[in-house]
């Protein structure tokens, strides 16, 4: 698994799209979905998890279970996950936003642990973290 992380509007999707321009990709934009599909056998990109978790989950355990069911079913050598870093701002006033921020933080920690590669995108530039 290759994980890309960066702040919002930093050009993460564009960077991945360019890197995979010659490949046939199952691009899963989870933010628009009410449940995750089955990953196909080839190249898979999973993005928009923050919005997906925000609208479909209220409990961290079931949220992580749901995401990792998808991840474990995909071909690890051909799976790309794009996550947005939402953990550096002021603690949100609304409890659901606080829950989301914590859940995404722990999701990212686990993704980084299991990923073979982690790349950070900063305004279109890339740095390998792992």
């Amino acid at each position: 698994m290759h994980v890309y992380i960066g702040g919002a509007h930093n050009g993460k999707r564009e960077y991945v799209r360019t890197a995979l321009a010659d490949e046939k990709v199952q691009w899963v934009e989870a933010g628009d979905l009410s449940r995750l599909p089955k990953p196909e056998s080839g190249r898979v990109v999973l993005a928009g998890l923050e919005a997906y978790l925000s609208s479909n989950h209220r409990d961290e355990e079931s949220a992580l279970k749901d995401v990792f069911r998808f991840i474990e079913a995909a071909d690890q050598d051909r799976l790309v996950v794009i996550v947005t870093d939402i953990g550096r701002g002021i603690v949100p006033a609304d409890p659901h936003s606080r829950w989301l921020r914590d859940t995404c933080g722990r999701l990212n920690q686990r993704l980084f642990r299991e990923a073979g590669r982690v790349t950070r995108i900063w305004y279109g530039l890339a740095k390998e973290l792992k």
Partner: protein
Amino acid sequence: MVRGRLVFISGGVRSGKTAFAENWLCAHAAGRRVYVATGRPIDREMRERIRHHRQDRAARPESWETIERPADFSGILPMIREGDGLLIDCITTWLANEMYEGIESGLPCHRRQGCLEEKVEALLCALSEMTGKASAVVVVSNEVLDEPLPATADIRAYSEMLGHIHQRLVSMADLAYEMDAGIPLRWKPENGK
């Protein structure tokens, strides 16, 4: 004449980005040091903030010229002399000022079709022209995009535009640094001096 270098420096609040920018400019600029301030003294907190930045600059061993320019940077061009070192502080404030330009008429820029896009192109164009005259142009901005999606449409539009501007600036810049707790991380160029 050789084109001046364009430097982009971004960091969190009180991460030391202005101090780093000032030091960089002192080490690399040939002529006058010119500080382009974008803050508007609209309330007590802003007046305090401006006073603080002025004090910090006055306490430095070298002297600085200050240009107050909340928006429309093309107006700075005639004030620049050959070889000047410019420090523009900062893009986040500039964008907020431009977004609400015309608010007194009831229709701020960000609600007018294509207005903000035009201002962004004018900004990039002005910066490029500045590097034709100045020995260095250092542009400072803030890291504010690492938090949950903002709730209001205005702030969402602001965040999206800021991310876009930062990407364009990084792509134009000769050097790009991210400041974290006073420590600069150089993103561009990745290797070499």
